[in-house]
């Protein structure tokens, strides 16, 4: 695993000779300078794209990452080929990124808090969602439910994986079902939308989280800007689809700069944990001999009761 990270970083350095200029402000930045600042331009605040491994290294406490479902690979169910065979594109993506798919999932600790972390990588075929991404998401949810760990999903995606045809579209339905299973327990689900998160990923699990966080300047739109321009035949406003515009229109909860992301994540998870304690109070009354409630609410309370025996918080203060 560590070997793959170094492959990835050396590839970046190799391409840019140890320094790259910020696409936004053109300032020349050394690799060290960038790395020490969370891959954010110290001059203009532009958030550079992170690889999935870099993201894990940033969010997970060091040495706690335990990847699951790492052996999953696309089976190319359509034997798809356009100008090149899909199988060849997959091999190339795996070779370039050191990843088996556009998403890695695993358990880890985030500031000592147990969590299931799921990270997408835009460099792997545009972070597109096919059968493997859907299955990995499902397994991440299962792990979260089993261990009562919260789920954190870092999203970056161009949408569905066209090369898997209708099966990739149906991953939207599959991941949605998985989110519903999370909320039945419930375990908290936080999504972090990074540049860019669009299409089928945005229109499924990414926007179904309990709390939606975005990175500054991330493009978040269902349809791509070019598609919209072609449809309405006029140019788009400069801030179209950006995280800031999404916040103004009420589509996300907050924008958090990368340097504060880990702290904010743990704060929110801690707060959600506090809410569960309040919800448990009526149950104690029931246990004290008062008549149990009837109707759907009783079912809901029953769920909370089951949950009380195995809280998702495994880290006791």
């Amino acid at each position, binding site marked *: 695993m560590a070997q793959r990270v170094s492959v990835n970083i050396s590839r970046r350095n190799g391409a840019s000779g140890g320094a790259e200029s910020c696409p936004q402000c053109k300032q020349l930045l050394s690799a060290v300078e960038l790395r020490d600042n969370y891959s954010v331009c110290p001059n203009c605040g532009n958030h550079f794209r992170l690889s999935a491994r870099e993201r894990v290294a940033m969010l997970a406490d060091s040495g706690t990452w335990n990847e699951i479902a790492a052996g999953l*690979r696309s089976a190319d169910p*359509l034997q798809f080929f356009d100008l090149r065979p899909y199988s*060849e594109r997959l*091999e190339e993506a795996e070779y370039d990124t050191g990843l088996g798919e556009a998403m890695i999932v695993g358990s880890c600790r985030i500031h000592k808090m147990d969590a299931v972390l799921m990270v997408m990588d835009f460099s792997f075929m545009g972070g597109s969602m096919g059968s493997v991404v859907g299955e990995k998401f499902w397994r991440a949810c299962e792990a979260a439910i089993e261990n009562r760990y919260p789920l954190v999903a870092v999203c970056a995606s161009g949408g569905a994986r066209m090369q898997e045809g209708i099966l990739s579209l149906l*991953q939207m339905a599959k991941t949605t079902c998985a989110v519903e299973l999370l909320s039945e327990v419930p375990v908290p689900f936080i999504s972090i939308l990074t540049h860019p998160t669009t299409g089928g990923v*945005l229109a499924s699990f990414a926007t179904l989280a309990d709390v939606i966080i975005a990175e500054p300047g991330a493009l978040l739109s269902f349809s791509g800007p070019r598609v919209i321009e072609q449809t309405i035949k006029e140019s788009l406003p400069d801030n179209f689809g950006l995280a800031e515009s999404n916040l103004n229109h009420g589509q996300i909860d907050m924008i958090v700069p990368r340097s504060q992301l880990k702290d904010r994540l743990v704060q929110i998870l801690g707060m959600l944990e506090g809410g569960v304690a309040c919800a448990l109070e009526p149950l104690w009354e029931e246990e004290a001999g008062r008549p149990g409630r009837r109707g759907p609410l009783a079912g809901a309370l029953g769920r909370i009761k089951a949950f009380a025996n195995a809280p998702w918080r495994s880290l006791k203060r």
Partner: protein
Amino acid sequence: MAELKRLPTLPGVHLKDEIAKITHRLRDLGLSRQVDKAVWDKVELARHAQRPYTLDYIHHMFPGFIELSGDRCFADDAAIVAGLAAYMGRTIMVIGHQKGRDLAARTRRNFGMPRPEGYRKAQRLMILADKFGIPVFTMIDTPGAFPGVAAEERGQAGAISAALLCMARLDVPTVAVIIGEGGSGGALALGLADRVLMLENSIYSVISPESCAAILWKDSSEAHLAAQTLRLTSSQVADLGAIDAVLPEPRGGAHRDHAGAAHIVKEVLEDNLRELEAIRPLDRKRERFAKFRRMGVWKENGLTLF
């Protein structure tokens, strides 16, 4: 497996690999150039201007249909029609995309491309149906959700995901029929159902063949080839396990005989609802989740799994 993964990093092996791939590719390309005209015929039939739309099916299937409007939030989206209908001794909630047949209707219906309000109306009415134990029947026929600035600002992605989650949660039986164009997420938003059926000459695809050709072939005139490669016809989609059944159409296609097509859908809907109603709600939901969990094909440690 790990061994195999490392193989491409060895320069010699990688090269040999490349040679094998190129050989395959040449052969594949030779095959792929043979465009199967039958596939494009289906695409054209699915989009046929005389093909029955949701309101045509409603007209033939549900005489006492009462339309319900609005998302209670912003607008009523005419690209999605919804309402209550009496059907074989029960009430059902009917929800479907609606294209328009003439220019005025097309404009009003936005060519069957819903805005967030359409999905929110659908969601509101599915929750209403669930409250009263009314089964939900959806008809899918859209090129896709509308791509527009205002639609994005009002949360197109969130409206679709919320509709999907709503369908996943329903305790009542749900049946979806793809009656024409099942285009992308805008179609799927009404398609997370206990039973998903497809009319013979309808299509169901992650992206339109035109857009797919433009992106992958860098040439939108390769749409015929893209359509064939995407496997979007009813029988191909059924082979991939993405739907539950294909419904035959009247001789010559649904566009020749609206009443005949509606009759087929009506019969099949009754069969499916009766089967679903015999299952306990919790089991029905469990089966729904198990079905969508199985969607997809992948390899795990070298083994292909469905």
